[in-house]
């Protein structure tokens, strides 16, 4: 062979990566997924983006919609189109024709899968980027969490690989919608199970789960344990599906027996690679499943952790410098910098209540935001925001209940004001008691009738809602209704007094009121 002929031969036969790139480009250009992108954009703005925009300006909370809302949006369409592309050769009955091509069916199918994945992942990551940019403009502290994007990407690859293989195994025009609907049902069923079980154990494999608390990722880092397990499981599932594609004779592979038969078609390398990929995938998925079964809630951070993967560094608090401002009378309010946007709202909530109670025994001298997990769990379950404790008294509060998923300014304000007034007039919001029927339960302390009247009077005077009466569900008795009416009347009377008169009366009578010596009739 002359040098010219050798050069021509090299030019005529492009390299394998170039060939793959050409096939991939063709698959991407001809993908039908482009038709569904406007629908995906509509879905994205309809729920994930709208929901995230309503959440508090916190990285972990807002970006939770990536997996809780956007991921389940993408899944049925990713599955449907992957099935559609996977079933193409069977649907068009071109198996025999393509059997004569130089490359193995597996190579061709992986290029088709990659073409679909390019669109699916491009759409998903574009949505994630839009969400992250919008969040970055709103938050005051922290950085974008990477794991939701990683888990979403890997799990979508797994969904596509699994659906593609189903499409290749069972080609037909009805396969795509049936697989799409089936996977949607599966995703929703697993999500429902994850929510009902608190996301522990194997339900932690569901990328779609509980909405994290406001404090997630703020006082302590979010441990990546569960994300790593999810990535392991879904990567294993993807590899298993791809390996199955290479082995199944129905999809042009060498078959199960062929995989072990050195004389079968497909080439030794293909058989070895397909078998190894399948085995590695199954092993990885089983390992992920096994690790997920050990997932539990950390008592320190409140995060999900997997003991075998847990790094104790995740249990160390993140250092921060609180941001503070002064309410009326020099009352200092300090919050975590992540909640800086809510500081002025907090100050304006504390100002009127501190004007009423400052100087009284037990009134807090400042308010400090703390990690929700450090407060009694039952207190938070009772919808309170914090406790007044220590000497001098300090109001330790959390934003966990104050900022709801759909923020409500009145609820934010009233919660803090109710906590402080109740704490000064009555004392602790409640205590744990042990009952014979149901063991330890939280018993709220709403105070005596006089205390309730004064609490509600003070709250009424500053424009806040009454303290929750703690009535049991159902129809209260006539006697109870009459007592509540008397308390309301006394509260209105007390609220109508001039602020200085109220304060003077409280200064003189607070000790008696707290001790229960003041009756409803004694309230001015």
């Amino acid at each position: 062979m002359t040098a010219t002929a050798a050069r021509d031969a090299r030019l005529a036969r492009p390299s394998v990566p170039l060939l793959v790139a050409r096939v991939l480009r063709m698959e991407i250009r001809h993908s039908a997924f482009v038709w569904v992108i406007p629908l995906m954009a509509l879905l994205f703005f309809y729920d994930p983006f709208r929901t995230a925009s309503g959440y508090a300006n916190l990285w972990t909370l807002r970006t939770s919609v990536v997996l809780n809302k956007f991921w389940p949006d993408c899944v049925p369409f990713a599955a449907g189109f992957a099935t559609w592309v996977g079933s193409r050769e069977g649907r068009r009955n071109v198996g025999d024709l393509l059997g004569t091509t130089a490359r193995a069916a597996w190579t061709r199918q992986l290029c088709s899968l990659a073409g679909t994945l390019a669109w699916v992942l491009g759409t998903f990551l574009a949505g994630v980027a839009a969400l992250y940019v919008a969040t970055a403009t709103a938050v005051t502290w922290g950085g974008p969490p990477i794991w939701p994007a990683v888990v979403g990407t890997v799990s979508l690859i797994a969904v596509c690989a699994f659906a593609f293989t189903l499409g290749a195994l069972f080609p037909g025009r009805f396969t795509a919608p049936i697989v799409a609907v089936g996977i949607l049902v599966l995703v929703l069923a697993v999500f429902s199970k994850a929510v009902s079980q608190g996301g522990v154990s194997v339900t932690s494999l569901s990328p779609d789960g509980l909405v994290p608390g406001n404090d997630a990722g703020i006082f302590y880092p979010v441990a990546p344990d569960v994300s790593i397990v999810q990535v392991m499981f879904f990567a294993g599932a993807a590899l298993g599906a791809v390996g199955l594609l290479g082995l199944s004779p129905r999809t042009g592979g060498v078959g199960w027996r062929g995989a072990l038969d050195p004389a079968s078609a497909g080439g030794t390398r293909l058989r070895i690679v397909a078998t190894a990929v399948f085995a590695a995938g199954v092993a990885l998925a089983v390992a992920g499943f096994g690790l997920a079964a050990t997932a539990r809630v950390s008592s320190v951070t409140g995060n999900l952790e997997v003991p075998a993967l847990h790094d104790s560094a995740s249990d160390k608090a993140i250092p921060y410098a609180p941001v503070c401002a002064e309410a009326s009378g020099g009352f200092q309010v300090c919050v975590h910098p992540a909640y800086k946007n809510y500081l002025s709202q907090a100050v304006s909530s504390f100002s009127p209540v501190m004007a009423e109670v400052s100087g009284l025994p037990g009134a807090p001298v400042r308010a400090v935001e703390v990690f929700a997990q450090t407060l009694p769990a039952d207190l938070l379950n009772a919808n309170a925001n914090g406790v007044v404790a220590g000497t001098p008294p300090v109001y330790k509060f959390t934003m966990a209940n104050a900022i709801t998923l759909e923020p409500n300014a009145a609820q934010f304000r009233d919660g803090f004001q109710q906590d402080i007034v109740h704490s000064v007039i009555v004392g602790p919001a409640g205590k744990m008691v042990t009952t014979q029927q149901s063991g330890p339960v939280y018993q709220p302390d709403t105070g005596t009738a006089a205390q309730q009247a004064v609490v509600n009077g003070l709250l009424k005077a500053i424009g806040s809602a009454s303290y929750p009466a703690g009535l049991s569900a159902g129809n209260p008795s006539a006697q109870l209704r009459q007592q509540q009416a008397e308390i309301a009347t006394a509260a209105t009377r007390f609220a109508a007094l001039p602020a200085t008169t109220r304060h003077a009366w409280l200064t003189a009578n607070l000790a008696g009121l707290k001790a229960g010596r003041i009756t409803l009739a004694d309230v001015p």
Partner: protein
Amino acid sequence: MSAAGPLIWLHFRSRRVPPALAALGACAVALWAALEYHWSFGGAGGATDIPMIIEGAAAAIIAVTTHGPFGESERATGRWLPFLRLSMALALSGAAIGLLALAAAVAYSPQTGVYLYSGVLGVAQNVVGFAGIGLIFSLVTGGMIAWTGPLGLVVINQFALIANYSEPLTWAARPATDRGGWISAVVVCAAGLAAFTIRGPRVRPSGE
């Protein structure tokens, strides 16, 4: 007129109507099982979430049958094609409603709390509305991937159930007696049927 029967049968076969009926039957069995065994995702849409997805699946199957294998050449065959399209869409929608209603009737047992929360009215509303969206999508995307329309609407309605959204297209998340929901569903169905009857599904260069 004697040729009408074979013509309809050939048209239906070319659109894979027999397998579509089998798939609709499978949807009916799924609905029966969902009611009989109290399948639900819980939460706000507890009683309607699974039936809605099954109704969406039925509509997706109807949407996929709009694809014909003959492409453009079929359009030159005469004046009966629009009527054949219309009759097929109506027949399959009717069959879907009938089969799902039958499944609900078989499972019906109010003593044990087994009944379709939205009733047959809800089934009819959702099937005609979702199928209408599927027919509209077939004009844009071609019949083979027209299932994306009903599926997208099901996803939107699932979110509407969970988050309590209420928009014109979220009729499936509202009570079956809601007049606005019925108006939306019927308008979508009528628009889809009319457009599909007149224009037929889009034929893409790939033939699909």
